[in-house]
């Protein structure tokens, strides 16, 4: 019974985080929620008796993808679109 509760809650949490990651207004928050989604996926893989995928998901899905996207978000947020012409002029 507790197992069912755990699985049910996990699935609900997965769907909620996925929705939140896609619909969040703030892009930075969306990526953070997506990392949480990845961590929940890790737990789901453990529940599915797939420890290999759980390890890979934790390292790649949540870790690397998260860092990659966070870095991209800060990049896209910080630089102004007009910068292109300035830099083009310098070089």
């Amino acid at each position, binding site marked *: 019974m507790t197992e069912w509760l755990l699985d*049910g809650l996990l699935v609900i949490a997965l769907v909620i985080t996925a929705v939140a990651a896609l619909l969040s207004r703030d892009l930075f928050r969306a990526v953070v929620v997506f990392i949480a989604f990845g961590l929940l996926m890790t737990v789901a893989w453990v529940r599915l008796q797939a420890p290999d995928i759980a390890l*890979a998901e934790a390292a790649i899905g949540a870790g690397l993808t998260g860092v990659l996207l966070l870095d*991209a978000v800060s990049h896209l947020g910080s630089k102004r679109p007009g910068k292109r012409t300035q830099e083009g002029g310098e070089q």
Partner: protein
Amino acid sequence: MTAPLLYALAGALLCGLGLFGLLCLSHLLRKLLAFNVMGSGVFLVMVGLPQHQGGPDPVPQALVLTGIVVAIAATALAVVLIRRYYHLSGLTTLDAEPTSREGGQE
């Protein structure tokens, strides 16, 4: 109804969510997030469905490992392209058509 089947059905839902995101969201990074959500959904179906009857099955697990690596490769490539695209054009979406004249496209 078993736990793997529950996860497979959740995977179906995630696929639908990801599809919706890929089609509706315009920001490229959000599209990328949607792609990853949809990918996770597909992987859940892939592992959950066969394990519903047979118990742990290493074959789809190995396939999903391969799939995850392919997905990160695609994601990382897309991020590089998006950043460079932003750097050159200042755009983060593909919606606006600044230069192209596709003559005839609706």
